[in-house]
């Protein structure tokens, strides 16, 4: 990857190659925990932190690890970081940790993390690897938060419910109740809501990409006088 640039990496991680939208990795925690915004944000941050640490470490040691043992070494590194973060969360965000429960240790099995270690960090310098971890992690977290907000909004008519679990009791004002006396839309909070919600989000992303591509093709076609390069639709 000689033509890697920070801008490309950011675009790849946040949009074009988004972990959850395009690679469809890490869906188990994504679907399970996205029933409200704060849970999504909590798991997203933990995953981001693990991804940063593991990408940086893997990149730093990329010349010392032999190919035969690289996967076990990567897994060990990831598992150690996850365990450490699990302990830290239990100590400093005890209530949120109780809610996220098993999904924090399960970050180990999020394929997105080992995929980034193997496909990117082990072949690039620490700066790029760290940036890639940050962008991939942010991309994943964004999907978690958006899906969480969507489900929370539809399901119980609030946003940032239980914000105090994450930011302390001073952050209770963050909770927004959008509809008073909202009866709730159960489907959105239950597992089917996660699948349908994610499906709709992916569809929305594809639609955006498609209309953008059409627009660029249209401008290319009008600015280009050569009839051979016209778009088939316009001939």
């Amino acid at each position, binding site marked *: 990857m000689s033509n890697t640039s920070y801008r490309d990496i950011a675009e790849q991680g946040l949009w074009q190659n988004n972990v959850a939208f395009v690679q469809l990795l890490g869906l188990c925690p994504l679907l399970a925990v996205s029933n409200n915004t704060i849970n999504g944000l909590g798991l997203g941050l933990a995953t981001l932190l693990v991804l940063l640490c593991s990408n940086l470490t893997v990149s730093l*040691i990329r010349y010392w690890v032999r190919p035969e*043992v690289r996967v076990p070494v990567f897994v060990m590194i990831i598992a150690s970081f996850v365990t*450490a973060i699990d302990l830290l969360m239990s100590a400093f965000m005890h*209530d949120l940790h109780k809610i996220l429960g098993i999904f924090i240790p399960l970050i180990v099995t999020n394929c997105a993390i080992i995929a980034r270690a193997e496909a990117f960090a082990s072949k690039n310098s620490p700066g790029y690897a760290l940036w890639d971890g940050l962008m991939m992690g942010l991309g994943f977290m964004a999907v978690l938060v958006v899906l969480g907000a969507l489900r929370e909004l539809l*399901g119980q008519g609030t946003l940032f419910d239980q914000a105090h679990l994450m930011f302390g009791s001073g952050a209770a004002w963050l909770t927004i109740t959008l509809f008073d006396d909202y009866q709730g839309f159960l489907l959105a909070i239950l597992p089917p809501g996660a699948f349908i919600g994610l499906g709709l989000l992916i569809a929305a992303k594809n639609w955006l990409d498609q209309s953008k591509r059409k627009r660029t093709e249209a401008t290319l076609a009008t600015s280009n006088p050569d009839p051979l390069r016209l778009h088939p639709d316009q001939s």
Partner: protein
Amino acid sequence: MIVRQILITGAILGGFAIIGSTLVAVTYEATEERIEQAHREALLRSLHELVPHERCDNDLYHDVIEVTDKALLGSHKPTRVYRARKSGEPVAALFTSIAPNGYGGAIKLLVAINYDGSLAGVRVLQHHETPGLGDDIEAQRSDWILSFNNHSLSTLSSEQWRVEKDGGVFDQFTGATITPRAIVKAVHHTLKYFQQHREMIFNTPSMPREVESRE
């Protein structure tokens, strides 16, 4: 030559295993106390919600015994009973009872019973009931759990200790009868257990410290 390669590779793997374990060990050492403290604070908060500070002056967290009664306390495992006292006089007992037959499995309860046998309050500590239907048992979501307050075996007969559908006095929720039924039954059983064992509960010495730090 091959042996040498294997040894080097093994050494690398072993080296990383040591580094990884060290990281985990150091973090564990650094956070152990804080986790223990957070755990204790969370527990004390829920205990004192039912028996406020004004009503007791003992160290609730350490004044605890374990009792086992499959039929009345819902589990073959030991159930913890925290004891609230003021100036040495018994005030209330807080049971970590289990309602084994919830819709989504066991529901962990905290049942606080005053020394005179009336309920100081009930809270749900952990459950897996359907969100939006069964989770009205949580105090943040509805007042239902407060309807137990002040009731006892003498204010209601055995027939009244049921949900309305079964001829008792407690509301069921629309679409969810199994959940309230399970909780009413568990609370009723805990009261019965308390009535039978009241003196034993307050007179048994606390468990030794090392045992109780393990959850």
